[in-house]
């Protein structure tokens, strides 16, 4: 992609091919001989990291699509079957879900790098605009993908985002109907979103090719912002840039693996483990963390159409950056004012992201408006002004000079800090919960931490409690009897499971006469639900619907707050769900005098709003254990919650086991890459 190739094949077969299709020459000139500035720092490895992430997302996505069913009635269940039943399904799903966030972290670093070093300036305007297009496509793809699991956040995210288009004058409603394929978000919407989610990554890949083409025509920018003049200013792409990129990639993989194996739900929203319900909107609709700054801008504007325009403008303005900033000096290293304002802009973006996760009320709205003005002010006022008044520092004569005068080498550590900060900021999404109930106390769980395991005795006692108490109202429909004999599970034998299953009556049929009939359960059957349908469940429970418990410990959470959620990232704390479930079971109390409860509800300290439709389900002495464990409410709550955590995450032990192996490998590999990179670069310095 950089002019005629100098590649001269020697093998006759390669010569033959080269004369007909010079593809090896193309690869050679683009990725081997291609001259790359020798002063690139580690911020430049994010291009390679992004290429890898695109590959990871496409590959894992293709595999997820092999197991996914794009149907409103089956989508949620198919994702659960993928995670529970498919070999390594949990791993592939975690890779894809966390991969989306990693992709965005990397792209934001890549974009801020371009902003800081002026990589959008002449002659790289088209390169930059192609990048903005890729970013837009990524946002669309990420949104479409988030809808597919068809949980509560998927459904309501789809509703809110598609409704943005209803702000368009005159034709807005028609556009929204067109997007939905119906009168509301439903099965046709899910189907087309799946189709488009599969399509767009390949469109991205195509634009990436153009992006790299444009890059190789204009040449890479570099931290000094001066063009390479002589051969001394550059090194060949291979091995120098390849090995440096590979080291960057291996470090990024460590960061990625932390999420895949230890914090798979840190960046997600607990509400998305509740199947989509068109009748109930979650209390706080929060988009994925990577949209939050734009979401904050949208909410800052009190007018619907103006808000939507502001939000889209916040992205579109990036495309005009090459002309808004007309300063001749590229790199902010030599622009004392631009450098300071750049970091202020970074802080503005992070704060906007924080506000996007907060409830739209009071001080948050005012702060959001101020920051929205600052955001646009940076692009539309500050940058044009700066380029006219700022007096840049003198540039180095050449890249070689810049390398020789190089002092600081802290860039890599800054890169890692930046990545961590991004992840932490992402975690603040969970901050959106309003504080009204007391926070459930943190219990000591055997499954917490990087080496956590389920307590087998606790699992078996928990199952007994579920069977004797909970199962009269709550289903456990994603758990099959056979799961009780799974590795990492309660540890029953196949024979015990068969005996347990045969105690249940399972509806089967139709038989030869066309009738449904009851038969004893088999290991392959799932726990039967206590009610034939939701309506029957509501009728029997005073209008309340007892939720299915298969995912309850992942579908419930509470606010950890700043700065606790930052520590949680490092301590791998993610037991909000179990803490909450256990607290609810123990939270029934006498109603305080000043509280009035609606009829048919009970007072619970930890339930949001305190009025719960479930009467106190467990009391001391209610269930007897064979293993001598105390028959107390605290023990019951702990055991049944442990069991339900296993039900929600049956492969947790396998996940943590594999995680340890992967980390040992990746640390060794990153170390090897580091030394290899040092050796390779030794003669270039």
């Amino acid at each position, binding site marked *: 992609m950089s002019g005629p190739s100098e590649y001269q094949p020697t093998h006759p077969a390669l010569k033959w091919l080269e004369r007909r299709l010079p593809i090896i020459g193309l690869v050679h000139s683009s990725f081997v001989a291609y001259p790359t500035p020798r002063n690139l720092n580690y911020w430049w490895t994010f291009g390679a990291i992004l290429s890898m992430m695109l590959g990871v997302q496409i*590959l894992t996505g293709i*595999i997820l699509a*092999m*197991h996914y069913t794009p149907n409103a009635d089956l989508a949620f269940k198919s994702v659960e*079957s993928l995670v*529970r*039943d*498919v*070999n*390594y*399904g949990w*791993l*592939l799903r975690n890779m894809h879900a966390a991969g989306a966030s990693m992709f965005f972290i990397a792209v934001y670093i890549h974009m801020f790098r371009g902003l800081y070093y002026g990589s959008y300036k002449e002659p790289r305007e088209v390169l930059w605009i192609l990048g903005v297009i890729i970013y837009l496509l990524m946002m669309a793809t990420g949104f479409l993908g988030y809808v597919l699991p068809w949980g509560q956040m998927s459904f309501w995210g789809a509703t809110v985002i598609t409704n943005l288009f209803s702000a368009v004058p005159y034709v807005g409603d028609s556009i929204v109907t067109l997007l939905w394929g119906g009168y509301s978000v439903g099965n046709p919407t899910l189907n087309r979103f799946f189709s488009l989610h599969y399509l767009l990554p390949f469109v991205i890949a195509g634009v990436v090719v153009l992006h790299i083409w444009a890059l190789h025509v204009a040449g890479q920018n570099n931290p000094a912002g001066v063009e390479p003049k002589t051969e001394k200013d550059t090194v060949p792409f291979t091995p120098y840039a390849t090995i440096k990129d590979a080291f960057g990639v291996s470090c990024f993989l460590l960061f990625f693996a932390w999420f895949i194996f230890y914090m798979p739900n840190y960046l997600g929203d607990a509400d998305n483990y509740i199947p989509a319900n068109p009748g109930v909107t979650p209390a706080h609709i929060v988009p994925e963390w990577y949209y939050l700054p734009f979401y904050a801008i949208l909410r800052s504007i009190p007018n619907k159409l103006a808000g939507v325009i502001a939000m889209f403008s916040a992205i579109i303005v990036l495309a005009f950056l090459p002309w808004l900033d007309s300063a001749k000096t590229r790199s902010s290293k030599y622009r004392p004012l631009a450098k300071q304002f750049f970091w202020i802009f970074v802080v503005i973006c992070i704060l906007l992201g924080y506000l996007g996760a907060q409830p739209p009320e009071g001080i948050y709205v005012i702060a959001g408006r101020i920051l929205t003005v600052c955001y646009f002010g940076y692009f539309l006022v500050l940058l044009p002004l700066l380029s006219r008044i700022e007096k840049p520092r003198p540039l180095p004569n050449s890249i070689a000079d810049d390398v020789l005068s190089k002092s600081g080498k802290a860039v890599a550590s800054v890169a890692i800090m930046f990545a961590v900060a991004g992840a932490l900021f992402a975690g603040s999404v969970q901050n959106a919960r309003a504080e009204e109930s007391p926070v459930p106390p943190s219990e000591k769980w055997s499954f917490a931490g990087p080496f956590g395991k389920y307590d087998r005795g606790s699992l078996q006692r928990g199952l007994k409690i579920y069977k004797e108490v909970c199962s009269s109202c709550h289903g456990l429909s994603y758990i*099959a009897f*056979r799961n009780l004999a*799974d590795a990492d599970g309660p540890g029953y034998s196949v024979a015990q499971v068969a005996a347990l299953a045969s105690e249940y009556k399972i509806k089967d049929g139709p038989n*030869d006469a066309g009738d449904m009939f009851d038969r004893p359960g*088999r*290991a*392959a059957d799932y726990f039967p639900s206590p009610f034939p349908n939701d309506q029957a469940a509501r009728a029997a429970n005073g209008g309340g619907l007892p939720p299915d418990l298969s995912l309850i410990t992942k579908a419930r959470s509470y606010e950890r707050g700043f700065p606790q959620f930052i520590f949680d990232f490092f301590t791998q704390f993610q037991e909000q769900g179990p803490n909450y479930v256990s607290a609810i079971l123990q939270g029934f109390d006498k109603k305080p005098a000043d509280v009035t409860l609606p009829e048919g509800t009970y007072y619970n300290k930890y339930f949001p709003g305190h009025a719960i439709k479930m009467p106190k389900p467990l009391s001391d002495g209610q269930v007897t254990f064979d293993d001598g464990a105390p028959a107390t409410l605290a023990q019951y709550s702990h055991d049944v919650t442990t069991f339900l955590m296993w039900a929600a995450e049956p492969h947790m032990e396998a996940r943590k086991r594999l995680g340890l192996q992967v980390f040992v*490998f990746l640390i*060794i*590999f990153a170390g*090897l*890459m580091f*030394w*290899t990179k040092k*050796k390779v670069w*030794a*003669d270039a310095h």
Partner: protein
Amino acid sequence: MTTASSAGTTRRDFLFVATGAAAAVGTVFTAWPFISQMNPDASTIAAGAPIEVDLTPIAEGQDIKVFWRGKPIYISHRTKKQIDEARAVPVASLPDPATDQSRVKDGHDQWLVVIGICTHLGCIPIAHEGNYDGFFCPCHGSQYDSSGRIRQGPAPANLPVPPYQFVSDTKIQIG
């Protein structure tokens, strides 16, 4: 740096080989989950557990088709004539030699249980058709006899007998 010495070169080569080897090992291990996920998942395997079939409704000369692991299983209640035909033919003359006795359970000679998938290219043969009082495959004309053995046509082997046993005189368990 004193990379000119041969010791330095060797150390460097070793490092490159070690890094390359680690990358190759990592790639192979990473590939495994991506391949393994294509195998049948746990629910499919569980659904492939043995099934029981009641034989009482099947009259002599009739046959039924049941599904086990997604495969059609023919259960034929053979007539005396069919059994005699199957046993009269010289075993050595068959393309895939097997005695009729070896294809049924002792003492249950009237019951033939075979997987109804043509061993040629997987079509489903039709029962009670063809020249041998057995099965006829409409796809490419393979003909099986009343013991499910290949007699004529392109199929290379007899219809396979699935694993099964008699739980009682009137009930079998397949699998």
